[in-house]
């Protein structure tokens, strides 16, 4: 049985490889294979998979590439993820990608669709518009038609028909993937010393880069290894991280939080892995099933609309309760409108529930971790103190 270290080492090398060798090799293994990239936060990977293509998560360049050309495409007051993504394209690191999906998350990602349409006219670049109206007859109908269009596009791109049967197989695989990730998060919430935040992060991130079949095996073995591993339990406080759903923090930031005495017991990294709160139905019309799951079982995040005022921010309060966390750390990418506009409303919900929090901003290439570490350390200390005195 592989150890957690061995598994995480594999994930780490996948994460560090910005030439995406694993995906390139997957593509090269058989003629006519195609790769479709996607950006945060959610796309129906099942459809890409059912067409025989590889869904590949493009989550920016992190702190590992120097953005040179990408900066010429963006003003200083725009976040980092689009510029490093452009850099990945311009430096040919993504030259093997045949298509890209840009979900409707914010105006920056939205406009990136058009930029890629101009920069890579040979590539399929699709804006993936999710309904903000969750009524089956209204947003649902629109969404089903959008999914059908996507299905048709993927059939053209891949040259493969997407049968209902194939789509059901994909749904089963991704349901399993979500189930495993859920198990991982439950384990971490219960015994956070067994699943360090950086490991959970790297393991989830590997799911953006590997075929789902491989990722399922990887997560299964990690959970098994982590459960039986003997790791020391520290006197850390438990926190939920909020705001990192798009531009990803540098790995060092996550490490710093742990070193500062925080166990991360829930987070919104790579929400795509956990988007559906319930399994997608594995029977009946698979497109309808994907649409219904999206409309009625999507997770909540800053990038979506909350139709009911009383529910605003309750998802975060719930996350704290469910994971047994003692506080929330808001960490948002600089210049991120969805995360930063949402924050005051979330903070109000936490205030009402008596949950302590701190907030800071980061960029994917932030280098200086000392201030964050100090802030998080003070927060952890105050929680412990407050907890003991309570």
């Amino acid at each position, binding site marked *: 049985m592989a150890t957690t270290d061995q598994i995480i080492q594999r994930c780490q090398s996948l994460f560090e490889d910005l030439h995406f060798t694993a995906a390139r090799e997957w593509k090269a293994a058989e003629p006519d294979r195609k790769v479709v990239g996607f950006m945060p936060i959610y796309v129906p990977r099942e459809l890409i998979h059912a067409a025989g293509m590889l869904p590949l998560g493009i989550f920016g360049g992190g702190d590992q590439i120097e953005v040179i050309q990408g900066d*010429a*495409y*963006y*003003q200083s*007051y*725009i976040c980092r993820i*689009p510029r490093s993504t452009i850099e990945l394209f311009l430096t040919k690191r993504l030259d093997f990608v045949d298509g890209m999906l*840009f979900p*409707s*998350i*914010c*105006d*920056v990602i*939205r*406009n*990136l*669709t*058009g*930029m890629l*349409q*101009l*920069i890579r006219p040979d590539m399929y670049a*699709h*804006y*993936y*518009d999710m*309904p*903000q*109206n969750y*009524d089956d*007859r*209204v*947003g649902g*109908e*629109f969404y089903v*038609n*959008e999914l059908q*269009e996507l299905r048709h596009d993927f059939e053209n791109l891949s040259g493969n028909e997407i049968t209902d049967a194939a789509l059901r197989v994909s749904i089963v695989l991704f349901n399993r993937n979500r189930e495993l990730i859920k198990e991982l998060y439950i384990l971490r919430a219960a015994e956070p010393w067994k699943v360090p935040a950086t490991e959970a992060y790297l393991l989830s991130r590997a799911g953006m880069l590997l075929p789902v079949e491989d990722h399922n095996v990887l997560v299964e073995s990690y959970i098994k290894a982590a459960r039986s591993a003997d790791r020391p339990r520290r006197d850390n406080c438990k926190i939920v991280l909020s705001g990192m759903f798009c531009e990803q923090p540098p790995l060092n930031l996550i490490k710093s939080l742990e070193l500062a005495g925080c166990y991360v017991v829930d987070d919104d990294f790579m929400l795509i892995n956990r988007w559906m709160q319930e399994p997608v139905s594995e029977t009946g019309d698979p497109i309808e099933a994907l649409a219904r799951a999206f409309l009625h079982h999507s997770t909540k995040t*800053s*990038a979506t*609309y*909350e*139709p009911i*005022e009383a529910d*605003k921010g309750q998802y975060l309060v719930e996350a704290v309760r469910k994971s047994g966390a003692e506080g929330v750390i808001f960490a*948002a990418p*600089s*210049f*991120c*409108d*969805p995360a*930063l*506009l*949402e*924050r*005051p*409303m979330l*903070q*109000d919900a936490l205030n009402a529930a008596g949950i302590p929090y701190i907030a800071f*901003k980061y960029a994917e290439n932030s280098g200086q971790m000392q201030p964050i570490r100090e802030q998080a350390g003070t927060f952890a200390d105050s929680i412990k103190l407050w907890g003991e005195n309570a």
Partner: protein
Amino acid sequence: MTTVATKKIDLREAQKDQSMEKQKEMIAGNFTRLARAPQTGEKVSYTFVPGNINELVMCFDMVGNFPEINALQMGMRKKSGNFIFDAERAGHSEDVCTYVKTDLGMVYNGNIGPTGERLPEPDILLLSYTGCFTFLKWFELLRHQYKCPTVMLHVPYQGGGKITENMRKYVVKQLKEEVIPTLERISGVKFDIDRLREYLRESARAEDDLVWVLQTARHKPSPIDAYFGGVYYVGPIFSAFRGTRDATEYYRLLRAEIQARIDAGLGPVTPEGNMGEEKYRLVVEGPPNYTNLREFWKMFYDDGAVVVASSYTKVGGVYDFGFRHDPEHPLESLADYCLGCYTNMNLPQRVDMLVNYINDYEADGLLINSIKSCNSFSAGQLLMMREVEKRTGKPAAFVETDLVDPRYFSAANVKNRLESYFQMVDQKRRAA
């Protein structure tokens, strides 16, 4: 010579007297209606400019408030800086859109509108979510403040560069299933489609005249400035007046005045009178800066630069490529209107439009005013600039300001940029 000069001054006065006065009256009237709403019992809707469905709102006898317009008015009155500061002190990030913060700052300070009268609380937040994600959060924040009902109209983005039947159907369905029933419930007024048709007919009349006015910039010299003057010209049609007789009348007056300027061979009116010789014809992309609008404009007209077409005057509706509100297809045409607003178009479409303007209006080049607040406009503009340059062979320039945050208007920087740009245009001409 003397005669001509006198004639010029008279004409400027005439312009002030008629269309401008008319617009002032209309705006003041709407603010008064808003201020009196608590007494008159009129129901108040708050909504956004892009994708506003004013004709429909009018069917329910509601009075409309436009937070974006309040924010820009506060910018022009130099009050936005303090409001932004107050919003930031209350916990809103320095990074986010300053329209939102100006509005919130205004709310925190008693919601006293631009005319000094208190604005009423909304009976309904009509979230016309067109062309900008920030709208979603903005109205969630207002709802958080007012605890009032909200109804959303989600307008899909033209990611593939066209309006599809699925998009149109989705918008119409939301109008039928969500928006109309909610407005009926809030207002107590039953929806009457014939009333809507009547308003749409009126809209189309005003739209014809607006387009006529905007296209007069093809003349040399252009009788209008389609950016600095343009922001005033689009005022009525972008806000609470589209579909009203007042708007039709406003555009009729404006059209007559511009016709008179053409007949007299005059250029645009500026805050300092008639513009001198037209030396540069520009297309501008992006919203203006409102805190220093006059100063910004002066940098143009002092150097003989006139804006012959702008994208900003299309955020509240693109009419110059043929679209008109259509009383025969009322809900569908409202849907097409919303779907067609400028910031709901994808980047290749926006590039096409700017290229088209440069060619059609025989412009010397493109100027982008990139707005710090506005990701919807700004993300991608540097690439757009290069594309437009490549396709037209005309020089482009890039300046950075903000809509209403005075901290981001550096007059010296903007002026330097503009001057080197004008020199570039000169060089290009000499080389040609």
